[in-house]
């Protein structure tokens, strides 16, 4: 599993790690029972403090996404619901960031929604054109 962090993301690192795991679930790259990288591995590959990784895993466990098997590592919980729960949750996070970005640029929510609708239509017509 590959977890990347964006330099420009202003949110706390542990939150970014949590979202990265969620994104992998939604995409299907991770599924129930899969192992997460060890705290040591992930901290080393991301060059971050191991405590930050532990914090992210602990939060994920609290949310029921991950369970820790002592001495074995962290695994995706069998009750995880990528489509029903994690997908809308991740979408909400993305939307929040989009809204913040809009506000920073002096835009209203409607401006962004309009732009999104136009983009969606363009994408659809392209698809039809290809088909």
């Amino acid at each position: 599993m590959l977890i990347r962090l964006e330099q420009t993301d202003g949110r706390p690192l542990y939150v970014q790690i949590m979202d990265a795991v969620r994104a992998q679930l939604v995409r299907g790259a991770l599924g129930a029972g899969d192992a997460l990288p060890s705290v040591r591995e992930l901290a080393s590959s991301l060059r971050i403090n191991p405590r930050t990784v532990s914090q992210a895993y602990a939060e994920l466990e609290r949310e029921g996404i991950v369970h820790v098997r002592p001495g074995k590592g962290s695994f995706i919980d069998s009750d995880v619901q990528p489509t029903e729960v994690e997908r809308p949750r991740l979408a909400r996070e993305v939307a929040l960031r989009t809204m913040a970005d809009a506000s920073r640029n002096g835009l209203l929510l409607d401006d962004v929604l309009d732009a999104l609708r136009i983009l969606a239509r363009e994408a659809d017509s392209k698809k039809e054109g290809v088909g």
Partner: protein
Amino acid sequence: MKVSTMTPLPIDMGDGPFAIEVEGVSRRFEETQALDDLALAVPEGAVYVLVGPNGAGKTTLLTMLMGLGARDSGSLRVHGMDPAARGAEVRANVGYVPEHQRLGYPWLTVGRYLEHCARLTPGWDREYAARLCRDFDVDLSKRCDSLSKGQTRRVQIIAALASRPAVLLLDEPTDGLDHVIRDVMLGVLAEHFADSPTTALISTHRVYEIERLVDHVGVLRRGRLLGQMPVDDLRGKLRRYWGTAPEDFELSLGSGQRVVRTIRGPADAEWTVWGEEQDVVAGLGRAGATVRDVAPLSLDEAATALLSQREIS
């Protein structure tokens, strides 16, 4: 740029336990007051970065913690031991990367120098040292005086880490390292912190390089600590607010809140403020400003903002 008064930042780090405790330490060198009634506490297990401009006293403090520098007053403890009285024991538990980049004996090979360290450092882990040498791409057969600054730095880092000491004192550890080796070092440190119970006190000008590794920060200026706190607290409480404000805007914030920096453009403004976000936003709103965005500062930006405040005497 309008400048506010100095922000009183938190200093209290709670009850510990602390790996390093500094209380009321002063040291004067002829003309300069290197340390001025300095108080600082590094909790056990913390990765604490000490930021400050040149001459703030960072190196003086680290040298003192190694039992090398005298102090005029105050008390200093490393795991409860005073380095001035129990220097040997302190050094047995501290891995130190000095500010200078000289390796003890130029006529020794790097391998022999590390062997010297190995024989004299309790707990030296030969296997780990060998792995570090591979990771850092160190040529053991080279003579110490033929090394470049960056190569010397690598050997110093290996010597500091190889015994997995309880405390690491790193003075500008990334100084002289190229991009690749710096990246290697950050990975090595992350693994080291995951594998060994360590408290690290890192002094650096380049906070951005180690930003993601540290969890505590202390801001030092002119031998005094402006503040120290967990990085999460800093990120949570020191934020940048963007918005618009009327011409005659006059901001008055409640207690516990301070404007660190204000930058005003023709139509909008940016405030860097210490305080709880909702209180600050409310305060700005009451004063007639419209806040459009709030963002935390990176550690580097925070340090710059705090250190560039002018002192009002």
